[in-house]
Protein backbone atom coordinates (compact mmCIF):
# COMPACT_ATOMS: atom_id res chain seq x y z
CA UNK A 1 0.00 0.00 0.00
CA UNK A 2 2.84 2.33 0.83
CA UNK A 3 4.32 1.83 -2.58
CA UNK A 4 1.06 2.65 -4.23
CA UNK A 5 0.84 5.91 -2.36
CA UNK A 6 4.42 6.78 -3.25
CA UNK A 7 3.93 6.16 -6.93
CA UNK A 8 1.08 8.62 -7.27
CA UNK A 9 2.21 11.39 -9.60
CA UNK A 10 0.51 14.45 -8.15
CA UNK A 11 -0.24 13.70 -4.54
CA UNK A 12 -0.19 17.13 -2.91
CA UNK A 13 -3.60 18.47 -3.78
CA UNK A 14 -5.32 15.12 -3.80
CA UNK A 15 -4.43 14.00 -0.32
CA UNK A 16 -5.32 17.40 1.12
CA UNK A 17 -8.31 18.07 3.33
CA UNK A 18 -10.40 15.30 1.80
CA UNK A 19 -8.25 12.32 2.80
CA UNK A 20 -7.60 13.98 6.10
CA UNK A 21 -11.23 14.04 7.07
CA UNK A 22 -11.62 10.39 6.16
CA UNK A 23 -8.69 9.50 8.36
CA UNK A 24 -10.22 11.54 11.14
CA UNK A 25 -13.51 9.72 10.69
CA UNK A 26 -11.76 6.39 11.01
CA UNK A 27 -9.87 7.55 14.06
CA UNK A 28 -13.08 8.79 15.65
CA UNK A 29 -14.77 5.44 15.06
CA UNK A 30 -11.74 3.57 16.36
CA UNK A 31 -11.23 5.71 19.45
CA UNK A 32 -14.84 5.20 20.48
CA UNK A 33 -13.85 1.58 21.14
CA UNK A 34 -12.03 2.02 24.47
CA UNK A 35 -10.92 -1.59 24.65
CA UNK A 36 -9.25 -1.38 21.24
CA UNK A 37 -7.47 1.86 22.17
CA UNK A 38 -6.24 0.31 25.41
CA UNK A 39 -5.03 -2.71 23.46
CA UNK A 40 -3.20 -0.43 21.01
CA UNK A 41 -1.43 1.23 23.93
CA UNK A 42 -0.49 -2.22 25.26
CA UNK A 43 0.99 -3.13 21.87
CA UNK A 44 3.08 0.04 21.76
CA UNK A 45 4.30 -0.72 25.28
CA UNK A 46 5.10 -4.32 24.32
CA UNK A 47 7.19 -3.22 21.34
CA UNK A 48 8.92 -0.63 23.54
CA UNK A 49 9.72 -3.29 26.13
CA UNK A 50 10.94 -5.68 23.46
CA UNK A 51 13.30 -3.13 21.94
CA UNK A 52 14.64 -2.08 25.33
CA UNK A 53 14.56 -5.60 26.80
CA UNK A 54 18.32 -6.25 26.92
CA UNK A 55 18.96 -3.00 28.78
CA UNK A 56 16.01 -3.03 31.19
CA UNK A 57 16.09 -6.72 32.05
CA UNK A 58 17.38 -7.04 35.63
CA UNK A 59 19.74 -9.82 34.56
CA UNK A 60 21.26 -11.21 31.42
CA UNK A 61 18.78 -13.83 30.18
CA UNK A 62 21.60 -16.41 30.10
CA UNK A 63 22.99 -15.56 33.55
CA UNK A 64 22.96 -18.26 36.23
CA UNK A 65 22.27 -17.57 39.90
CA UNK A 66 24.36 -20.27 41.53
CA UNK A 67 22.46 -22.30 44.10
CA UNK A 68 19.04 -20.81 43.36
CA UNK A 69 17.17 -23.22 41.10
CA UNK A 70 13.36 -22.96 40.98
CA UNK A 71 13.07 -20.08 43.45
CA UNK A 72 9.52 -18.70 43.71
CA UNK A 73 8.83 -15.07 42.75
CA UNK A 74 10.49 -12.58 45.10
CA UNK A 75 11.67 -8.96 45.16
CA UNK A 76 14.92 -10.10 43.64
CA UNK A 77 13.44 -12.37 40.94
CA UNK A 78 9.97 -11.06 40.12
CA UNK A 79 8.93 -14.14 38.17
CA UNK A 80 11.17 -16.56 40.11
CA UNK A 81 13.99 -18.61 38.64
CA UNK A 82 14.00 -21.65 36.37
CA UNK A 83 15.61 -25.06 36.79
CA UNK A 84 18.88 -23.70 35.47
CA UNK A 85 18.72 -20.83 38.03
CA UNK A 86 18.07 -18.16 35.38
CA UNK A 87 15.83 -15.17 36.07
CA UNK A 88 12.41 -15.90 34.51
CA UNK A 89 11.41 -12.21 34.34
CA UNK A 90 14.47 -11.31 32.27
CA UNK A 91 13.85 -14.26 30.00
CA UNK A 92 10.18 -13.39 29.48
CA UNK A 93 11.23 -9.84 28.57
CA UNK A 94 13.90 -10.87 26.07
CA UNK A 95 11.70 -13.62 24.60
CA UNK A 96 9.18 -10.96 23.58
CA UNK A 97 11.65 -10.02 20.85
CA UNK A 98 11.17 -13.41 19.20
CA UNK A 99 7.37 -13.38 19.22
CA UNK A 100 6.99 -9.77 18.15
CA UNK A 101 9.55 -10.00 15.35
CA UNK A 102 8.17 -13.31 14.08
CA UNK A 103 4.75 -11.67 14.08
CA UNK A 104 5.95 -8.72 12.01
CA UNK A 105 8.01 -10.63 9.44
CA UNK A 106 5.45 -13.41 8.99
CA UNK A 107 2.69 -10.88 8.48
CA UNK A 108 4.77 -9.04 5.88
CA UNK A 109 5.07 -12.34 4.02
CA UNK A 110 1.39 -13.22 4.51
CA UNK A 111 0.27 -9.81 3.28
CA UNK A 112 2.75 -9.81 0.40
CA UNK A 113 1.79 -13.23 -0.91
CA UNK A 114 -1.90 -12.96 -0.07
CA UNK A 115 -2.40 -9.55 -1.66
CA UNK A 116 -0.39 -10.44 -4.80
CA UNK A 117 -2.20 -13.71 -5.46
CA UNK A 118 -5.60 -12.35 -4.44
CA UNK A 119 -5.16 -9.30 -6.66
CA UNK A 120 -3.94 -11.45 -9.54
CA UNK A 121 -6.94 -13.78 -9.23
CA UNK A 122 -9.42 -10.95 -8.83
CA UNK A 123 -8.03 -8.78 -11.62
CA UNK A 124 -7.21 -11.48 -14.16
CA UNK A 125 -10.28 -13.66 -13.66
CA UNK A 126 -10.87 -16.69 -15.89
CA UNK A 127 -8.41 -19.55 -15.83
CA UNK A 128 -5.86 -17.73 -13.67
CA UNK A 129 -8.50 -17.04 -11.05
CA UNK A 130 -9.74 -20.62 -11.17
CA UNK A 131 -6.23 -22.06 -10.82
CA UNK A 132 -5.30 -19.83 -7.88
CA UNK A 133 -8.55 -20.45 -6.05
CA UNK A 134 -8.35 -24.22 -6.48
CA UNK A 135 -4.75 -24.17 -5.27
CA UNK A 136 -5.96 -22.32 -2.18
CA UNK A 137 -8.67 -24.97 -1.69
CA UNK A 138 -6.02 -27.66 -1.74
CA UNK A 139 -3.65 -25.94 0.66
CA UNK A 140 -6.50 -25.13 3.03
CA UNK A 141 -7.51 -28.79 3.09
CA UNK A 142 -4.31 -29.70 4.89
CA UNK A 143 -4.64 -28.64 8.54
CA UNK A 144 -2.34 -25.65 8.96
CA UNK A 145 -0.67 -26.90 12.11
CA UNK A 146 0.14 -30.11 10.30
CA UNK A 147 1.73 -28.25 7.41
CA UNK A 148 3.54 -25.95 9.80
CA UNK A 149 5.04 -28.69 11.93
CA UNK A 150 6.05 -30.71 8.90
CA UNK A 151 7.73 -27.74 7.23
CA UNK A 152 9.40 -26.55 10.43
CA UNK A 153 10.76 -30.01 11.16
CA UNK A 154 11.90 -30.83 7.63
CA UNK A 155 13.81 -27.58 7.29
CA UNK A 156 16.19 -26.89 10.15
CA UNK A 157 14.24 -25.18 12.94
CA UNK A 158 15.38 -21.60 13.54
CA UNK A 159 14.05 -18.08 13.94
CA UNK A 160 14.13 -17.47 10.17
CA UNK A 161 12.54 -20.85 9.37
CA UNK A 162 9.73 -20.07 11.80
CA UNK A 163 9.03 -16.71 10.16
CA UNK A 164 9.12 -18.11 6.62
CA UNK A 165 7.10 -21.21 7.38
CA UNK A 166 4.32 -19.27 9.10
CA UNK A 167 4.27 -16.80 6.22
CA UNK A 168 4.08 -19.51 3.58
CA UNK A 169 1.24 -21.41 5.26
CA UNK A 170 -1.01 -18.50 6.28
CA UNK A 171 -1.62 -16.26 3.25
CA UNK A 172 -4.72 -18.05 1.93
CA UNK A 173 -7.46 -16.18 3.76
CA UNK A 174 -5.91 -12.82 2.86
CA UNK A 175 -5.78 -13.84 -0.81
CA UNK A 176 -9.41 -14.91 -0.74
CA UNK A 177 -10.57 -11.68 0.86
CA UNK A 178 -8.56 -9.45 -1.49
CA UNK A 179 -9.91 -11.36 -4.47
CA UNK A 180 -13.45 -10.97 -3.17
CA UNK A 181 -12.92 -7.25 -2.72
CA UNK A 182 -11.54 -6.97 -6.28
CA UNK A 183 -14.51 -8.83 -7.72
CA UNK A 184 -16.87 -6.56 -5.81
CA UNK A 185 -15.28 -3.28 -6.87
CA UNK A 186 -14.49 -4.38 -10.42
CA UNK A 187 -18.05 -3.88 -11.56
CA UNK A 188 -18.69 -0.65 -9.64
CA UNK A 189 -19.39 2.54 -11.59
CA UNK A 190 -16.16 4.35 -10.80
CA UNK A 191 -14.08 1.46 -12.10
CA UNK A 192 -16.25 1.13 -15.21
CA UNK A 193 -15.84 4.88 -15.73
CA UNK A 194 -12.07 4.61 -15.44
CA UNK A 195 -12.09 1.76 -17.91
CA UNK A 196 -14.34 3.68 -20.29
CA UNK A 197 -11.88 6.57 -20.14
CA UNK A 198 -9.26 4.14 -21.42
CA UNK A 199 -7.25 3.66 -18.25
CA UNK A 200 -4.79 0.77 -18.70
CA UNK A 201 -5.24 -2.38 -16.63
CA UNK A 202 -2.35 -1.83 -14.26
CA UNK A 203 -3.61 1.67 -13.50
CA UNK A 204 -7.08 0.37 -12.65
CA UNK A 205 -5.59 -2.26 -10.37
CA UNK A 206 -3.18 0.06 -8.58
CA UNK A 207 -5.28 3.22 -8.36
CA UNK A 208 -8.81 1.92 -8.10
CA UNK A 209 -9.08 -1.70 -7.06
CA UNK A 210 -6.18 -1.94 -4.61
CA UNK A 211 -7.04 1.24 -2.64
CA UNK A 212 -10.56 -0.13 -2.17
CA UNK A 213 -9.12 -3.28 -0.67
CA UNK A 214 -6.78 -1.47 1.75
CA UNK A 215 -9.26 -1.62 4.63
CA UNK A 216 -9.63 -5.38 4.31
CA UNK A 217 -5.86 -5.80 4.04
CA UNK A 218 -5.09 -3.74 7.14
CA UNK A 219 -7.65 -5.61 9.23
CA UNK A 220 -6.43 -9.00 8.03
CA UNK A 221 -2.80 -8.11 8.69
CA UNK A 222 -3.53 -7.00 12.24
CA UNK A 223 -5.50 -10.14 13.00
CA UNK A 224 -2.76 -12.28 11.47
CA UNK A 225 -0.22 -10.65 13.78
CA UNK A 226 -2.07 -12.33 16.64
CA UNK A 227 -2.45 -15.68 14.84
CA UNK A 228 1.20 -15.68 13.79
CA UNK A 229 2.32 -15.16 17.37
CA UNK A 230 0.08 -18.03 18.50
CA UNK A 231 1.52 -20.27 15.79
CA UNK A 232 5.09 -19.27 16.67
CA UNK A 233 4.54 -20.09 20.33
CA UNK A 234 3.04 -23.45 19.37
CA UNK A 235 6.04 -24.30 17.20
CA UNK A 236 8.42 -23.17 19.96
CA UNK A 237 6.53 -25.26 22.48
CA UNK A 238 6.97 -28.33 20.29
CA UNK A 239 10.68 -27.58 20.05
CA UNK A 240 10.42 -26.59 16.38
CA UNK A 241 10.77 -22.83 16.76
CA UNK A 242 13.87 -20.71 17.36
CA UNK A 243 16.49 -22.87 19.03
CA UNK A 244 18.26 -22.28 22.35
CA UNK A 245 19.93 -20.16 23.59
CA UNK A 246 17.36 -17.81 22.00
CA UNK A 247 14.56 -17.67 24.58
CA UNK A 248 10.97 -17.84 23.37
CA UNK A 249 7.75 -18.00 25.35
CA UNK A 250 6.70 -21.31 23.86
CA UNK A 251 10.06 -22.95 24.58
CA UNK A 252 9.97 -21.59 28.14
CA UNK A 253 6.60 -23.26 28.62
CA UNK A 254 7.97 -26.54 27.31
CA UNK A 255 10.89 -26.24 29.75
CA UNK A 256 8.68 -25.27 32.65
CA UNK A 257 6.33 -28.15 32.01
CA UNK A 258 8.87 -30.56 33.52
CA UNK A 259 8.80 -28.79 36.89
CA UNK A 260 5.18 -27.70 36.70
CA UNK A 261 4.22 -29.36 39.98
CA UNK A 262 6.94 -27.60 41.97
CA UNK A 263 7.32 -24.32 40.09
CA UNK A 264 4.08 -22.86 38.70
CA UNK A 265 5.79 -19.55 37.87
CA UNK A 266 7.72 -21.15 35.04
CA UNK A 267 4.57 -21.97 33.10
CA UNK A 268 2.22 -19.22 34.28
CA UNK A 269 4.24 -16.12 33.34
CA UNK A 270 5.35 -16.94 29.77
CA UNK A 271 1.80 -18.11 29.06
CA UNK A 272 0.39 -14.82 30.36
CA UNK A 273 2.81 -12.99 28.07
CA UNK A 274 1.56 -14.88 25.01
CA UNK A 275 -2.02 -14.38 26.08
CA UNK A 276 -1.71 -10.62 26.62
CA UNK A 277 0.13 -10.08 23.34
CA UNK A 278 -2.28 -12.15 21.26
CA UNK A 279 -5.33 -10.63 22.94
CA UNK A 280 -4.05 -7.09 22.33
CA UNK A 281 -3.55 -7.69 18.61
CA UNK A 282 -6.96 -9.36 18.41
CA UNK A 283 -8.71 -6.44 20.06
CA UNK A 284 -6.96 -3.87 17.86
CA UNK A 285 -7.77 -5.93 14.76
CA UNK A 286 -11.41 -6.11 15.77
CA UNK A 287 -11.53 -2.39 16.53
CA UNK A 288 -9.94 -1.61 13.17
CA UNK A 289 -12.45 -3.79 11.38
CA UNK A 290 -15.34 -1.94 12.97
CA UNK A 291 -13.78 1.43 12.18
CA UNK A 292 -12.55 0.72 8.65
CA UNK A 293 -14.96 -1.72 7.23
CA UNK A 294 -18.50 -1.40 8.54
CA UNK A 295 -19.71 -4.15 6.21
CA UNK A 296 -17.58 -6.74 7.97
CA UNK A 297 -18.57 -5.48 11.40
CA UNK A 298 -18.72 -8.20 14.01
CA UNK A 299 -21.64 -7.59 16.26
Amino acid at each position, binding site marked *: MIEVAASRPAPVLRTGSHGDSQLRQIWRAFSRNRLAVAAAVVIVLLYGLAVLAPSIAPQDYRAFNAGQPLKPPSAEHWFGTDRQTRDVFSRVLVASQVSLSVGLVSVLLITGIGVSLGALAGAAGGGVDEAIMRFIDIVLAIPQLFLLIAAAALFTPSLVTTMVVIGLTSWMSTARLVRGEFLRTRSLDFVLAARALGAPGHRIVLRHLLPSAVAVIIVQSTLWLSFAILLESTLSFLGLGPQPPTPSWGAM*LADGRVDMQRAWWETVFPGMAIFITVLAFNLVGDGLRDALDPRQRSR
Partner: protein
Amino acid sequence: MTPSNRRYLLRRLLLLVPLLVGLTIVVFALIHLAPGDPALAFVSEGSIDPQIVAQVRKNLGLDQPLPVQYVIWISHVARLDFGTAYTFNGTPVIELIEQRLPATLVLQTAALALSLAVSIPLGIVSAKKQYSAIDNTATAGAFLGLALPNFWIALMLQLLLAVSLGWLPASTPGTDETTGIARLKYLVLPVIVLALPTLAVFTRFVRSSMLEVIKQDYVTTARAKGLSEPTVTYRHALKNALIPMVTVVGTQLARLLGGAVVVEYIFAWPGLGSLAYESILKRDYPVVLALTLLTGAFILVVNMLVDVAYTLVDPRVSFR
Protein backbone atom coordinates in the same frame (compact mmCIF):
# COMPACT_ATOMS: atom_id res chain seq x y z
CA MET B 1 -33.97 -29.23 -7.11
CA THR B 2 -33.61 -27.03 -10.14
CA PRO B 3 -31.64 -28.26 -13.18
CA SER B 4 -29.07 -25.52 -12.59
CA ASN B 5 -28.53 -26.76 -9.06
CA ARG B 6 -28.19 -30.29 -10.32
CA ARG B 7 -25.58 -29.13 -12.81
CA TYR B 8 -23.77 -27.33 -10.01
CA LEU B 9 -23.75 -30.43 -7.83
CA LEU B 10 -22.38 -32.54 -10.65
CA ARG B 11 -19.67 -29.98 -11.37
CA ARG B 12 -18.81 -29.81 -7.67
CA LEU B 13 -18.53 -33.59 -7.55
CA LEU B 14 -16.28 -33.73 -10.62
CA LEU B 15 -14.10 -30.93 -9.27
CA LEU B 16 -13.10 -33.26 -6.47
CA VAL B 17 -10.93 -35.27 -8.89
CA PRO B 18 -8.52 -32.48 -9.91
CA LEU B 19 -8.48 -31.25 -6.31
CA LEU B 20 -7.42 -34.66 -5.03
CA VAL B 21 -4.75 -35.01 -7.73
CA GLY B 22 -3.52 -31.50 -6.93
CA LEU B 23 -3.39 -32.44 -3.27
CA THR B 24 -1.15 -35.44 -3.96
CA ILE B 25 1.24 -33.25 -5.98
CA VAL B 26 1.37 -30.51 -3.33
CA VAL B 27 1.93 -32.98 -0.50
CA PHE B 28 4.55 -34.96 -2.39
CA ALA B 29 6.42 -31.84 -3.50
CA LEU B 30 6.38 -30.34 0.00
CA ILE B 31 7.86 -33.39 1.63
CA HIS B 32 10.40 -34.29 -1.02
CA LEU B 33 11.71 -30.82 -1.72
CA ALA B 34 12.60 -30.33 1.93
CA PRO B 35 16.24 -30.93 2.75
CA GLY B 36 17.11 -33.78 5.07
CA ASP B 37 17.80 -37.37 4.19
CA PRO B 38 15.28 -39.97 5.35
CA ALA B 39 17.87 -42.66 4.71
CA LEU B 40 19.73 -41.30 7.74
CA ALA B 41 16.78 -42.31 9.91
CA PHE B 42 17.68 -45.93 9.14
CA VAL B 43 21.32 -46.08 10.00
CA SER B 44 22.39 -45.96 13.62
CA GLU B 45 23.83 -42.60 14.53
CA GLY B 46 27.37 -43.75 15.27
CA SER B 47 28.01 -45.43 11.95
CA ILE B 48 27.17 -43.13 9.11
CA ASP B 49 28.94 -45.13 6.46
CA PRO B 50 28.28 -43.48 3.07
CA GLN B 51 28.11 -46.87 1.40
CA ILE B 52 25.40 -48.16 3.71
CA VAL B 53 23.47 -44.91 3.34
CA ALA B 54 23.63 -45.24 -0.44
CA GLN B 55 22.38 -48.81 -0.23
CA VAL B 56 19.51 -47.76 2.04
CA ARG B 57 18.57 -44.98 -0.37
CA LYS B 58 18.53 -47.48 -3.20
CA ASN B 59 16.36 -49.93 -1.29
CA LEU B 60 13.85 -47.19 -0.49
CA GLY B 61 13.76 -46.00 -4.10
CA LEU B 62 15.09 -42.62 -3.03
CA ASP B 63 17.77 -42.70 -5.75
CA GLN B 64 15.13 -42.38 -8.47
CA PRO B 65 14.24 -38.98 -9.97
CA LEU B 66 11.34 -37.26 -8.18
CA PRO B 67 8.74 -37.63 -10.97
CA VAL B 68 9.46 -41.37 -11.08
CA GLN B 69 9.13 -41.58 -7.30
CA TYR B 70 5.84 -39.69 -7.57
CA VAL B 71 4.40 -42.01 -10.20
CA ILE B 72 5.42 -45.11 -8.23
CA TRP B 73 3.97 -43.62 -5.06
CA ILE B 74 0.70 -42.50 -6.66
CA SER B 75 0.09 -45.87 -8.32
CA HIS B 76 0.37 -47.47 -4.90
CA VAL B 77 -1.74 -44.79 -3.23
CA ALA B 78 -4.50 -45.35 -5.76
CA ARG B 79 -4.73 -48.88 -4.36
CA LEU B 80 -4.66 -47.50 -0.81
CA ASP B 81 -1.20 -48.97 -0.35
CA PHE B 82 0.92 -46.52 1.57
CA GLY B 83 3.91 -48.82 1.91
CA THR B 84 5.68 -49.63 5.14
CA ALA B 85 6.95 -47.14 7.67
CA TYR B 86 10.69 -46.45 7.72
CA THR B 87 10.60 -46.55 11.51
CA PHE B 88 7.92 -47.98 13.86
CA ASN B 89 9.52 -51.43 13.23
CA GLY B 90 8.61 -51.29 9.58
CA THR B 91 4.89 -51.68 10.22
CA PRO B 92 2.70 -51.13 7.14
CA VAL B 93 1.52 -47.50 7.21
CA ILE B 94 -2.12 -48.44 6.81
CA GLU B 95 -1.89 -50.68 9.89
CA LEU B 96 -0.31 -47.87 11.91
CA ILE B 97 -3.16 -45.60 10.91
CA GLU B 98 -5.76 -48.23 11.72
CA GLN B 99 -4.24 -48.65 15.18
CA ARG B 100 -4.28 -44.94 15.92
CA LEU B 101 -7.51 -43.92 14.21
CA PRO B 102 -10.02 -44.96 16.92
CA ALA B 103 -8.37 -42.85 19.63
CA THR B 104 -8.44 -39.79 17.38
CA LEU B 105 -12.03 -40.41 16.32
CA VAL B 106 -13.14 -40.59 19.95
CA LEU B 107 -11.34 -37.37 20.78
CA GLN B 108 -12.54 -35.48 17.69
CA THR B 109 -16.14 -36.60 17.97
CA ALA B 110 -16.30 -35.73 21.64
CA ALA B 111 -14.73 -32.31 21.05
CA LEU B 112 -17.07 -31.53 18.17
CA ALA B 113 -20.09 -32.70 20.16
CA LEU B 114 -19.06 -30.63 23.16
CA SER B 115 -18.53 -27.51 21.04
CA LEU B 116 -21.93 -27.85 19.42
CA ALA B 117 -23.73 -28.74 22.64
CA VAL B 118 -22.40 -25.64 24.40
CA SER B 119 -22.20 -23.13 21.57
CA ILE B 120 -25.72 -23.48 20.15
CA PRO B 121 -27.65 -22.76 23.37
CA LEU B 122 -25.08 -20.16 24.41
CA GLY B 123 -25.26 -18.43 21.02
CA ILE B 124 -29.06 -18.39 21.13
CA VAL B 125 -29.19 -16.89 24.62
CA SER B 126 -26.54 -14.33 23.67
CA ALA B 127 -28.54 -13.26 20.64
CA LYS B 128 -31.90 -13.18 22.42
CA LYS B 129 -30.49 -11.12 25.27
CA GLN B 130 -27.96 -9.00 23.41
CA TYR B 131 -25.61 -7.06 25.72
CA SER B 132 -26.93 -8.88 28.79
CA ALA B 133 -24.53 -10.25 31.38
CA ILE B 134 -24.61 -13.68 29.74
CA ASP B 135 -23.97 -12.21 26.30
CA ASN B 136 -21.08 -10.08 27.48
CA THR B 137 -19.54 -12.98 29.36
CA ALA B 138 -19.86 -15.23 26.32
CA THR B 139 -18.31 -12.59 24.07
CA ALA B 140 -15.43 -12.03 26.48
CA GLY B 141 -15.03 -15.78 26.86
CA ALA B 142 -14.87 -16.26 23.10
CA PHE B 143 -12.18 -13.61 22.85
CA LEU B 144 -10.15 -15.20 25.60
CA GLY B 145 -10.67 -18.66 24.15
CA LEU B 146 -9.18 -17.53 20.85
CA ALA B 147 -6.27 -15.65 22.42
CA LEU B 148 -5.15 -18.43 24.78
CA PRO B 149 -2.72 -20.87 23.20
CA ASN B 150 -4.36 -24.28 23.60
CA PHE B 151 -1.18 -25.93 24.86
CA TRP B 152 -1.05 -23.39 27.65
CA ILE B 153 -4.69 -24.03 28.59
CA ALA B 154 -3.75 -27.70 28.66
CA LEU B 155 -0.85 -27.03 31.04
CA MET B 156 -2.92 -24.78 33.30
CA LEU B 157 -5.77 -27.31 33.48
CA GLN B 158 -3.29 -30.06 34.25
CA LEU B 159 -1.75 -27.87 36.93
CA LEU B 160 -5.08 -26.96 38.48
CA LEU B 161 -7.31 -30.00 38.09
CA ALA B 162 -4.83 -32.82 37.95
CA VAL B 163 -1.87 -31.72 40.02
CA SER B 164 -3.34 -29.35 42.64
CA LEU B 165 -6.80 -30.77 43.11
CA GLY B 166 -6.18 -34.32 41.92
CA TRP B 167 -9.64 -34.61 40.36
CA LEU B 168 -8.59 -35.81 36.97
CA PRO B 169 -5.68 -37.73 35.50
CA ALA B 170 -3.14 -35.54 33.72
CA SER B 171 -2.37 -37.99 30.98
CA THR B 172 -3.61 -41.08 29.18
CA PRO B 173 -4.70 -44.40 30.61
CA GLY B 174 -2.35 -47.33 31.00
CA THR B 175 -3.43 -50.56 29.40
CA ASP B 176 -4.63 -51.97 32.72
CA GLU B 177 -7.55 -49.58 33.03
CA THR B 178 -9.87 -50.67 30.30
CA THR B 179 -13.36 -50.33 31.71
CA GLY B 180 -15.50 -47.67 30.09
CA ILE B 181 -16.10 -45.33 33.00
CA ALA B 182 -12.50 -45.42 34.21
CA ARG B 183 -11.37 -44.43 30.73
CA LEU B 184 -13.90 -41.67 30.41
CA LYS B 185 -12.18 -39.40 32.88
CA TYR B 186 -9.01 -39.46 30.79
CA LEU B 187 -11.02 -37.93 28.01
CA VAL B 188 -12.16 -34.85 29.93
CA LEU B 189 -9.09 -32.62 29.75
CA PRO B 190 -8.04 -33.32 26.15
CA VAL B 191 -11.59 -32.85 24.92
CA ILE B 192 -12.02 -29.53 26.74
CA VAL B 193 -8.71 -28.20 25.41
CA LEU B 194 -9.42 -29.32 21.86
CA ALA B 195 -12.98 -27.99 21.92
CA LEU B 196 -12.31 -24.51 23.33
CA PRO B 197 -11.25 -22.58 20.20
CA THR B 198 -13.91 -24.28 18.08
CA LEU B 199 -16.48 -23.59 20.76
CA ALA B 200 -15.54 -19.91 20.72
CA VAL B 201 -15.90 -19.69 16.94
CA PHE B 202 -19.23 -21.54 16.94
CA THR B 203 -20.70 -19.39 19.70
CA ARG B 204 -19.79 -16.17 17.90
CA PHE B 205 -21.28 -17.57 14.73
CA VAL B 206 -24.59 -18.79 16.19
CA ARG B 207 -24.99 -15.44 17.93
CA SER B 208 -24.48 -13.27 14.87
CA SER B 209 -26.49 -15.60 12.66
CA MET B 210 -29.38 -15.55 15.16
CA LEU B 211 -29.22 -11.77 15.45
CA GLU B 212 -29.55 -11.49 11.69
CA VAL B 213 -32.50 -13.85 11.47
CA ILE B 214 -34.41 -12.43 14.43
CA LYS B 215 -34.67 -9.08 12.66
CA GLN B 216 -36.32 -10.52 9.59
CA ASP B 217 -39.93 -9.94 8.63
CA TYR B 218 -41.08 -13.52 8.81
CA VAL B 219 -40.00 -13.72 12.45
CA THR B 220 -41.96 -10.55 13.23
CA THR B 221 -44.90 -12.10 11.40
CA ALA B 222 -44.65 -15.27 13.45
CA ARG B 223 -44.65 -13.19 16.59
CA ALA B 224 -47.57 -11.06 15.36
CA LYS B 225 -49.58 -14.21 14.75
CA GLY B 226 -49.39 -14.69 18.50
CA LEU B 227 -46.99 -17.62 18.55
CA SER B 228 -45.21 -18.13 21.83
CA GLU B 229 -41.68 -16.82 22.08
CA PRO B 230 -40.07 -20.29 22.32
CA THR B 231 -41.92 -21.40 19.19
CA VAL B 232 -40.75 -18.30 17.34
CA THR B 233 -37.18 -18.83 18.47
CA TYR B 234 -36.82 -22.55 18.02
CA ARG B 235 -39.26 -23.43 15.26
CA HIS B 236 -38.89 -20.36 13.08
CA ALA B 237 -35.69 -18.44 13.75
CA LEU B 238 -33.27 -21.17 14.78
CA LYS B 239 -33.84 -23.35 11.73
CA ASN B 240 -32.66 -20.67 9.35
CA ALA B 241 -29.97 -19.39 11.66
CA LEU B 242 -28.29 -22.80 11.79
CA ILE B 243 -28.11 -23.37 8.03
CA PRO B 244 -24.87 -21.41 7.51
CA MET B 245 -23.49 -23.28 10.50
CA VAL B 246 -22.95 -26.26 8.17
CA THR B 247 -20.17 -24.34 6.44
CA VAL B 248 -18.54 -23.24 9.68
CA VAL B 249 -18.50 -26.78 11.04
CA GLY B 250 -16.82 -27.82 7.80
CA THR B 251 -14.07 -25.23 8.10
CA GLN B 252 -13.52 -25.95 11.77
CA LEU B 253 -12.88 -29.63 11.07
CA ALA B 254 -9.46 -28.77 9.67
CA ARG B 255 -8.72 -26.78 12.80
CA LEU B 256 -9.81 -29.63 15.06
CA LEU B 257 -7.63 -32.11 13.18
CA GLY B 258 -4.66 -29.75 13.34
CA GLY B 259 -5.27 -29.08 17.02
CA ALA B 260 -5.11 -32.81 17.62
CA VAL B 261 -1.37 -32.76 16.97
CA VAL B 262 -0.69 -30.48 19.94
CA VAL B 263 -3.37 -31.85 22.24
CA GLU B 264 -2.46 -35.49 21.63
CA TYR B 265 1.21 -34.65 22.14
CA ILE B 266 0.56 -32.96 25.50
CA PHE B 267 -1.77 -35.62 26.86
CA ALA B 268 0.19 -38.49 25.31
CA TRP B 269 -3.00 -39.50 23.52
CA PRO B 270 -2.22 -42.45 21.21
CA GLY B 271 -3.99 -41.06 18.14
CA LEU B 272 -3.15 -39.86 14.64
CA GLY B 273 -2.01 -36.46 15.91
CA SER B 274 0.79 -37.89 17.99
CA LEU B 275 1.59 -40.32 15.17
CA ALA B 276 1.96 -37.32 12.85
CA TYR B 277 4.25 -35.54 15.30
CA GLU B 278 6.45 -38.60 15.87
CA SER B 279 6.72 -39.45 12.20
CA ILE B 280 7.58 -35.87 11.23
CA LEU B 281 10.38 -35.76 13.82
CA LYS B 282 11.67 -39.12 12.58
CA ARG B 283 11.36 -38.03 8.92
CA ASP B 284 9.30 -41.11 8.29
CA TYR B 285 8.15 -40.01 4.82
CA PRO B 286 5.61 -42.75 4.04
CA VAL B 287 3.74 -42.09 7.28
CA VAL B 288 3.85 -38.29 6.90
CA LEU B 289 2.73 -38.54 3.28
CA ALA B 290 -0.13 -40.90 4.08
CA LEU B 291 -1.37 -38.85 7.02
CA THR B 292 -1.19 -35.51 5.22
CA LEU B 293 -2.84 -36.96 2.16
CA LEU B 294 -5.64 -38.73 4.03
CA THR B 295 -6.48 -35.70 6.21
CA GLY B 296 -6.38 -33.42 3.17
CA ALA B 297 -8.57 -35.77 1.15
CA PHE B 298 -10.96 -36.15 4.08
CA ILE B 299 -11.34 -32.39 4.36
CA LEU B 300 -11.79 -31.90 0.62
CA VAL B 301 -14.57 -34.50 0.66
CA VAL B 302 -16.17 -32.90 3.71
CA ASN B 303 -16.06 -29.48 2.05
CA MET B 304 -17.73 -30.96 -1.01
CA LEU B 305 -20.43 -32.55 1.13
CA VAL B 306 -20.92 -29.24 2.96
CA ASP B 307 -21.49 -27.44 -0.33
CA VAL B 308 -23.91 -30.12 -1.46
CA ALA B 309 -25.75 -30.11 1.87
CA TYR B 310 -26.04 -26.36 1.64
CA THR B 311 -27.84 -26.47 -1.69
CA LEU B 312 -30.13 -29.20 -0.41
CA VAL B 313 -30.97 -27.53 2.89
CA ASP B 314 -31.43 -23.97 1.70
CA PRO B 315 -33.63 -23.70 -1.39
CA ARG B 316 -32.76 -19.99 -1.66
CA VAL B 317 -29.22 -20.88 -2.64
CA SER B 318 -28.91 -21.35 -6.33
CA PHE B 319 -25.91 -21.52 -8.57
CA ARG B 320 -25.19 -20.65 -12.12
